[in-house]
């Protein structure tokens, strides 16, 4: 079977990021980039599917050339080949989904698995828009995925508010990975060396013939409010008084 895994590079979530002076985005200068953690989970799940059912794992990203490092990381984890749809513009989720839909048509995979969202802008839209564009079933927030023997269906457990939902979708489908789906493997040195020889095809986005004009424009980003320092209370009475009158939680 062929498994397509769209991935994205994001600023390292362990680093503190700064908002650009004009509020239009994040200051990326000097920030280390990593593979989005949910994408790693999707790659891992694809690799497990391949290990169980055989086939090929193809990763795809829509990004600038500098994303090659993260794509190679996915190849080092064990993906077979990669496609980099090259663009130097920041695209909105709809445009990314349009590009991925084209790649889907070129590759005709049996299943698409991707992260539920990227931890930079937390859009949580690309999987859903892609499913709509391709008129495919979608199974979002997957915490467990099981493929039927004939590879025609997938049983997916979804994390929904306060519980779990198990659904069945016909393949091909778009599955988006949640945090508890698996624990992704590392890009080991033997894997990194094997990845050196794997193919990474670069396709300029202009060759896809899609409309990438943004439908959503980010107007402004604001940092969260600075937290005020804590106070040490002198007595239980004072604590109760503060909880009642200042925090207003009692």
């Amino acid at each position, binding site marked *: 079977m062929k498994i397509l895994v769209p991935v994205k590079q994001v600023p390292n979530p*362990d680093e503190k990021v700064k908002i650009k002076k004009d509020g239009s985005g994040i200051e990326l200068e000097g920030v280390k980039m*990593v593979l989005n953690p949910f994408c790693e989970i999707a790659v891992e799940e694809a690799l497990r599917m391949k290990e169980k059912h055989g086939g090929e794992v193809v990763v795809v990203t829509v990004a600038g050339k500098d994303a*090659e*490092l993260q794509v*190679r*990381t996915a190849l*080092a984890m064990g993906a077979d080949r990669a496609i980099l749809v090259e663009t130097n513009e920041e695209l909105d989720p709809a445009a990314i989904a349009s590009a991925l839909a084209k790649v889907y048509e070129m590759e005709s995979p049996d299943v698409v698995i991707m992260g539920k969202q990227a931890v930079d802008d937390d859009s949580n839209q690309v999987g859903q828009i892609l499913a709509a564009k391709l008129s495919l079933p979608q199974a979002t927030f997957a915490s467990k995925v099981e493929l039927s023997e004939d590879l025609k269906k997938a049983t997916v457990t979804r994390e929904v508010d306060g519980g779990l939902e198990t659904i069945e979708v016909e393949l091909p489908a778009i599955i988006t990975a949640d945090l508890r789906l698996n624990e992704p493997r*590392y*890009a*080991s*040195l*033997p894997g*990194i*060396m094997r*990845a*050196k020889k794997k193919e990474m095809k670069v396709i300029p986005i202009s060759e896809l013939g899609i409309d990438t004009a943004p439908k959503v424009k980010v107007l402004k980003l604001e940092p969260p409010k600075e937290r005020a*320092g804590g106070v040490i209370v002198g007595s239980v009475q004072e604590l109760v008084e503060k909880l009642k009158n200042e925090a207003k939680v009692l």
Partner: protein
Amino acid sequence: MRIVLKREEEIFIQTVRKFVKTELEPISAQVEEEDRIPEEIISKMRQLGLFGMSVPEEYGGFGFSVTGQCAVMEEMGRTNACFRTIISTNNGIGVTGLVLAGTPEQKEKYLPKIATGEYITAFALTEPGAGSDAAGIKTSAVRAGDNYVLNGTKQFITNADVASLFSVIAVTDREKKHDGLTMFLVERGTPGFTVGPPEKKMGLRGSHTCELFFDDCRVPAGNVVGGEGKGFRLAMEVLDKGRLIIAASALGAARKLLEMMVEHANQRVAFGKPIGSFQAIQWMIADSAVEIYAMENMIYSAAAEMDEGKKIPHRVAMAKLFATEKACEIADRALQVHGGMGYMKDLPVERFYRDLRLTRIYEGTSEIQRLIIARHCLKKGGEC
């Protein structure tokens, strides 16, 4: 400074960073308590390829540049020092003699096993009677047909409890002094070779250092590395690489200590203010930052020169001397900034303080580094 890495090295550093954060750091206190790295962590290190970093690609390793190895060691320096010790002893001094001067047969036989971590390596120079004065060692190797017969004792040998292959320096011709030393590959289990129990140390718990005893131990002549009489020079080259790797791990530890210092300075309130608002604390932070910046520049520019094939023992000595002495000062300041909490075992500061102390002693004491630097300056009219 701009550190130039190969793409593979860059990807691997991301892996190491994640491994340190999610697997090593969480068990760091447990390892300290039990004085033992769990077997499953060692086997994960094997799978990741950490043991084979410096083994050339044609022997199943990864051919990391010195810069790449320093960058990995810097990341590993941020957690309990025993984790990086097993790796750095292997890549820094354990395998380097073989990589630099081994015969094709020796490389064929051992390097692929070292690359996978099946064979862990150690380096044995120091003896009860000679440490700094390496040419003063007593362990002897006498030719007997196709073998050499080794007799003597080595002391303080890191990784000795887990190593399968030892690079041992012994005297083949006492008259010739420096030119009478030879490096031998000795496999664990060779008759006449035994490893003593782990020493009780000030720190570096989880890593073990033992005595080696050679009692009429027969080693095949084919196990001589780099030729008879070439052992001293080879050992010095091995130590050059090892020293830079130690400096890089001291840099990682120093960075971690500065981060802890700053976090505590922002949080801890005394006299109604965060202690970070007091100038006395700020100066400790500033001095540490300056030293870390200088360390980084020294280490990575020396690494870049080594990668270009230059021989620069005096600069490596400078980097090791400066990085290890300053890392110890930074640990001391970090402890001071943490006050009483810094002295408690609940925080890792006191552990860094103890573990870093070693870096000023092994692979050449600070005094020996100064000696190397001064000799170079004196010989070259002040060139540094």
